[in-house]
């Protein structure tokens, strides 16, 4: 009995210490996380949202562009679409818009396109330069009639990162959606977008890190807030501790 009590007390002290340090760490993380909004605000103040990132030349293209995240989605629905060359693939556009739409790859390819040679910086530290052809997101969204209260654009994907329980997703704000280097790319280095790089359609951004640039797109939704979507942080990596603002 006596022994029991001692063990209990010891356990209690250990538990209390653990709880306190978890609380401290929790508070600590909230403090640390506050740097994200400071960084975003200051970067917005000193660097306009409309700033266009440097465009490179053919000579600068990476001989080997690293494919990151998922290289070939295991999703059977995706596999079936890929077998047919994405003939039956449709991009669903909806949410806070007046005219929701479904677009085929052929319809997207028929729209006025842009080609940009830009650098992609991975959060891990490496950079690759690729040539991307696609449709500016702003042009794609215009015919939908985006409602004034829409603040974010959500991107839903076919792929599920190894070990994750739900498919990849991402979000950007309305200002980023209107940026001239925010494009939905269907070609890379003058070839149809290969599967490791996000076929048939992927997001490309000029001023953000690679994890924001969702691959294997299946749907786009305009929302007022993403706090009730999945983990509530606006993206797969964001739900796992990474910053929503990926400008650095």
């Amino acid at each position: 009995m006596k022994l029991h009590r001692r063990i209990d007390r010891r356990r209690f002290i250990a538990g209390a210490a653990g709880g306190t340090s978890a609380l401290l760490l929790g508070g600590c993380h909230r403090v640390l996380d506050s740097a994200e909004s400071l960084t975003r605000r200051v970067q917005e103040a000193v660097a306009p949202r409309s700033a266009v990132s440097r465009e490179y030349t053919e000579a600068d293209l990476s001989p080997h562009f690293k494919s990151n995240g998922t290289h070939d989605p295991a999703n059977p629905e995706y596999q079936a679409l890929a077998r047919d060359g994405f003939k039956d693939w449709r991009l669903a556009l909806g949410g806070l818009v007046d005219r929701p739409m479904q677009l085929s790859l052929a319809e997207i390819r028929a729209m006025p396109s842009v080609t940009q040679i830009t650098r992609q910086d991975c959060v891990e530290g490496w950079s690759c330069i690729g040539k991307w052809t696609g449709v500016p997101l702003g042009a794609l969204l215009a015919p939908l009639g985006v409602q004034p209260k829409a603040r974010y654009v959500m991107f839903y994907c076919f792929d599920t990162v190894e070990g994750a329980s739900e498919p990849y997703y991402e979000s950007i704000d309305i200002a980023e959606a209107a940026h001239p280097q925010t494009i939905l790319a269907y070609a890379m280095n003058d070839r149809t977008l290969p599967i490791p790089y996000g076929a048939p359609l992927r997001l490309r951004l000029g001023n953000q890190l690679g994890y924001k640039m969702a691959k294997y797109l299946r749907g786009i939704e305009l929302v007022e807030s993403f706090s009730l979507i999945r983990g509530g942080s606006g993206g797969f990596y964001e739900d796992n501790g990474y910053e929503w603002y990926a400008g650095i």
Partner: protein
Amino acid sequence: MIYRHSLPVRVAHWVNVLCLVILFTSGLGIFNAWPALYRGIRTNFDQPLLAMYATPGADGQPQGVTEVFGHRFDTTGWLGLSSAKNGAPVVRGFPRWTTLPRSLDLAHSRRWHFFFAWVFVINGAAYALYALIGGHLWRNLLPSRQQLGGIAQTVWNHLRLRFPTGDAARHYNVLQKFSYLVVVFGLGPLIVATGLAMSPWIDAAYPLLLDVFGGRQSARTIHFVAAFAFLAFLLVHVAMVVLSGLWNNLRAMITGWYRLE
């Protein structure tokens, strides 16, 4: 006793100590996410300047390798391959006792790094303003003509571990002044600028940063080298503090009061 360090200098000093420790260790944690360095505008994966990785050794056991300018070194246990929490060998650049957090956790290393980068920048800017406007720079940091004339003698004295005493110890000596000037107005701004050059957003608005450092991957390499220059400064600085009177120096940096011998 003389009053040697003003309050702003003492506060800036200790805030900086905290920042440097956290920035360095969380920086190594970030580096570990891709433990290699390159030159230029993009990553040439097969031409790293520095790379840490693991490879099967002659005995079939994994071996930690550090490659510097194409030369390979076995760094098992230190770089490329070291022990995980449970003691098992794990592939990682720098070992767990050097990184913040200790596990391979890029997301949290970044959170620590960017928060303390702000503290470092604000603290550094306040100190620089104090130095420039408050007169600290002219009063204490810029070497006098007399000091510049005696530079050879000062070097010789330092090599023999003979440090200034009496009146000569009222001020920083000429070597101290040079190293503080280089760190405060050279290394500090350099590490901040190379850090910003890694931001795609800042690059878009200030492409000059890319040109100055020769591209984002070069900027990342310079950032890494600058971090180790800070470490080298810190090691020499602490060694000098210990050799020239640990308690007297520590008291002076805490209370401001320094005892002349």
